[in-house]
């Protein structure tokens, strides 16, 4: 692993055997993964799918996207939708506005192909 004390996994500043990373090296995001009943802290440069990063001077957290998003910019703005819904201006919708059509591969509302 790249940095961090020999005991701790990569990216950790402090850690415990039972709960993994407790604090991260500067600018990394701390994310809590579930392992059965346990929560294991991991330090990441980007939050996993379904989560977005919130930076603050004290700590950088991973928070859950809205339920309909696969990936998102923040809790109000999706960047990719789950299958079955279509992205338009940061929102995942079941149908698209009139002037657009739904693309299942992109999971987005896209301009119709010119005939």
């Amino acid at each position, binding site marked *: 692993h790249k940095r961090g004390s020999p005991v701790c996994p990569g990216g950790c500043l402090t850690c415990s055997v039972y709960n993994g990373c407790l604090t991260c090296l500067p600018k990394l995001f701390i994310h809590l993964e579930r392992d059965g009943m346990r929560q294991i802290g991991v330090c990441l440069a*980007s939050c996993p799918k379904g989560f977005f990063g919130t930076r603050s001077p004290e700590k950088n957290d991973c928070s859950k996207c809205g339920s309909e998003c696969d990936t998102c910019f923040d809790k*109000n703005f999706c*960047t990719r939708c789950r299958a079955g819904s279509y992205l338009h201006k940061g929102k995942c919708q079941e149908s698209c506005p009139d002037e657009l059509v739904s693309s299942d591969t992109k999971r987005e509302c896209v301009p119709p192909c010119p005939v």
Partner: protein
Amino acid sequence: GLCSLRVAGQGRSTPATCSPLCRCDEDGGADCSGKGLSTVPAGLSAFTYYLDLSMNNITELPANVFKNLPYLEELRLAGNDLVFIHPEALSGLYQLKVLMLQNNQLKTVPSAALKNLHALQSLRLDANHITVVPGDSFEGLQQLRHLWLDDNSLTEVPVGPLQHQGNLQALTLALNRITHIPDNAFANLSSLVVLHLHNNRIQEIGKNCFNGLDNLETLDLNFNNLKSFPEAIQTLPKLKELGFHSNNIAIIPEGAFHKNPLLRTVHLYDNPLSFVGRSAFQNLSDLHSLMLRGATLVQDFPSLTGTGNLESLTLTGTKIRAIPEDLCEDLSVLRTLDLSYNEIEELPSFQGCVSLQDVTVQHNRVQQIDRDTFQGLTSLRVLDLSRNQIKFIHRDAFLSLSALTNLDLSMNFLASVPTAGLNALNQLKLVGNPDMKNSLTAKSLPKLRSISVPYAYQCCAFMTCDSTHSSPESEEKRKDLGGDEEMERVPLVMHCSPSPGAFKPCAHLLGSWMIR
């Protein structure tokens, strides 16, 4: 363009090869993250569409290093030690949509290297050391939608580089050292929906600094040094989420949000508020939470007409003495109401606020509770009236509070308390009512589990006192406590304070407690 069909065979087929340093899947994804690499591994399949090189030790990207990966759509280089990206490093990546360069050592935006990424939608440059954003930084990026520049060392909004980004929808410039926002800073960003500027050093903003942001829904100005209310928000007709908590704003002017009718949340706590315009929060029909703390000079209760979907209202630390009689005419979905630490003398009827579950009016100057004050509040669970000057409570005041579990009447001037209707009550606080000397009975409070009373002897009615054991003699004493034949034995799972003890026995001294 968007309607181009993929060339046959160009789709995601089983990759012919994979670098031994990576894990490749059959969809064309290659994960080479956290392998201690100092260069981009060779031997990856030409059809690789996703390449994760994050958390390695790559300090430079030489020219044409990805030229064999023409179908790459997502490239992750976060968490390396990147200092330099050759202008030709990313050439050939015509289908690249997502480029992650966060958590590196870049001091400037690698504009030359980005120039030909015409399909790029998401660009992460956060958590670098960028002080300079060259004017042509994003010129070639016509499909750019999401841009992260937070946690860098910018001292001003990169107005020039952003001016051609008509498709940009989400931008964060948070955690930089920006001190002001000039007029028309985001003039051409007509598609922008989200703008984060929190944790900067913004002191003043131009009245027209948000001109052009016709579609902006989220604006985060928290943790800055704003001295005055950001009037510039009046050019944001679609605004839904607004935050400017933790600034230095003293005044919320009249009509502060009258041009933002779609507002859902406004975070403005941790400002040294001294005045809030009475009309500031009118006609915000989508607002569901309002928190105003410590506006010390406010004397008038803000008008909430047309703001009928409030679910939570907190208004504390003001000089407000009266609550409008018609407050509850408009607030049928209000669930929590916190009016503590004001100077309220009289309570209106909260009858229309039928969804109320939690009411706190502690630390005011209320003197009495009328019959209709809480009438009809069948969902009310918590009621805190502590630290007022209540002398009188109408005997039917709690009649309809069938769901009330916590009632705090401590630190008032009560001599007695009506219990009719309090069938669900399990916590009652009466301490600090010196005139309440009568003994209380548990009979009308079947669910009571915890009570605090002005005098220890009053606890005897609720528990088996330590100094008396269950013996015929104590039964005699139980009757003395004003308990009558039908008095049910109270379950012992009971907490009563101050609990009678050796020096405050339940048995009265020399025949009468009055001698105590």
